[in-house]
């Protein structure tokens, strides 16, 4: 028997009673040990998709499977094997982090040690501070810890870095890397591009409940190769002279911003920098080669 995929979403449609279609024919899958980012703007249908996988919502049509099980029908068999971090809330306002972790630890067969989890997530100092008095980042990290305490095979993290400072983000990235290393499948719903780019093995870009693109961050970024070299330099350059030197037309898109209609080959870039050096001109930012995930994302989500 082939190994069961950690997550399978096929032809998922979720329509709300008001008639709003939140998810409109979405399909994707993920394996054990894979970090999959569900990336999309607010209202793209990410949370609805995640909550269908968690068993909170039933598909209007299509199917979802987690570890081969139906999240609604097999709910009781699935809960010991999954970890959930809701987009917000989910914790008693008066509870202390150490109490919350001990409580959740009691729900699972072989839980993580609460004390070590508090340590890893940088919560040891606030272990006895009521939840309502924690900072936004500390609350997020506690929610993450509660998702992990049962050693899940699949972890659902809905916007885990929302409101988290730089140091907190680093901790969360490390924890996600640990999960991947021990074979846990992580589904990360986020609207933050750089988080998806940094932590995900694969990215599924969604908007209006539909899949727009799917692949590794590198695949997505090279999917449409850039055919221009863009750079900043002092305004009012001799674009005709530069065009001749590069053998490609150069235009000044905005004062001080230029675009050369040339393949971003190293040789062409070398010609550009040589020409600037000859004229004793500084070079501002230079964008050549693959586009950023942000470019891909904006192009895909603005057209839909």
């Amino acid at each position, binding site marked *: 028997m082939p190994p069961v995929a950690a997550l399978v979403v096929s032809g998922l449609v979720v329509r709300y009673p008001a008639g709003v279609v939140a998810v409109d024919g979405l399909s994707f899958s993920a394996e054990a040990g894979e970090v999959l980012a569900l990336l999309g703007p607010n209202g793209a249908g990410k949370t609805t998709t995640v909550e269908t996988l968690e068993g909170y919502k039933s598909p209007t049509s299509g199917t979802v499977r987690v570890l081969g099980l139906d999240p609604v029908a097999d709910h009781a068999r699935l809960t010991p094997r999954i970890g959930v971090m809701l987009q917000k809330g989910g914790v008693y306002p008066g509870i202390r982090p150490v109490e919350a972790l001990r409580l959740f630890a009691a*729900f699972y067969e072989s839980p993580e040690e609460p004390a070590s989890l508090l340590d890893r997530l940088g919560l040891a100092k606030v272990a006895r501070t009521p939840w309502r008095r924690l900072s936004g980042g500390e609350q997020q990290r506690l929610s993450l810890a509660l998702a992990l305490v*049962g050693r899940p095979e699949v972890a659902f993290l809905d916007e885990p870095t929302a409101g988290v400072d730089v140091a907190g983000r680093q901790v969360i990235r490390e924890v996600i890397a640990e999960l991947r290393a021990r074979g846990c499948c992580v589904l990360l719903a986020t609207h933050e591009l750089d988080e998806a780019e940094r932590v995900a093995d694969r990215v599924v870009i969604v908007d209006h409940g539909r899949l727009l693109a799917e692949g590794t961050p590198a695949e997505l970024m090279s999917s449409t190769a850039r055919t221009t070299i863009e750079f900043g330099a002092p305004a009012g350059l001799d674009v005709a002279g530069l065009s001749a030197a590069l053998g490609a037309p150069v235009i000044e898109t905005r004062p001080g911003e230029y675009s050369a209609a040339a393949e971003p080959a190293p040789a062409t870039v070398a010609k550009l920098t040589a020409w600037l050096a000859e004229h004793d001109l500084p070079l501002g930012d230079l964008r050549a080669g693959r586009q950023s995930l942000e470019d891909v994302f904006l192009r895909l989500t603005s057209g839909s």
Partner: protein
Amino acid sequence: MRKVLAQTRVELALTLRRGESVLLSLGIPVTLLVFFSFVDVLPTGTDDPVDFLAPGVLALAVMSTAMVGLGIATGFERQYGVLKRLGSTPLGRPALLAAKTLAILAVEALQVVVLAGVALVLGWRPSGSVAAFVPAMLLATAGFAGLGMLLAGRLRGEAVLAAANGLYLVLLLLGGMVIPLAELPGPLRALSRALPAAALSDVLHAASNAAAVPGRAWLVLAAWAVAAPVAAAATFRWE
């Protein structure tokens, strides 16, 4: 069982840590008991006011814990997504409800010990059989808890807070707990007798004064014990 006990421990710890719930479950009943025992202005109809007040505040204690305390806590837990989050753990709803029940019974046991202790110090001498207290308080707990959950399952936390406290005040006044039912005007008294608060205090008063326990009060208690939880279960929204 381990899950239920862990959940019960947290429910209890959170309840006892909230100042307002301690005020509600112990502060107010103890104050009423002590104040009106010394300031004999209530038309209690007993030689010593404590003989009327002790069963009354025991009934009040059940109502405050099972209806008000449970309702408000659960309403906020629903609003803050706690119930939703627990729904994706292996705890399960039956275990959660079992834990809430155990926590309520533990708080009630504490209330009975404290209130009965204070009443005995104040000179309460129950003359009847207090054995009827246990089934009456259990039935009332089911009925009041059903009412609390009925509010918690539909309203926002703040609205549950307002509604439960309002209902508490109405049932305190109409429930024969500090003001004898006999003092109420006829129609109001008839209404009161159909409500679980008066039914409970009727049974407790009769049982502690060696009077015959009215059968109608048992019926009312039993009816609420079934109807309120059924209504709550039918309408409860977990998110």
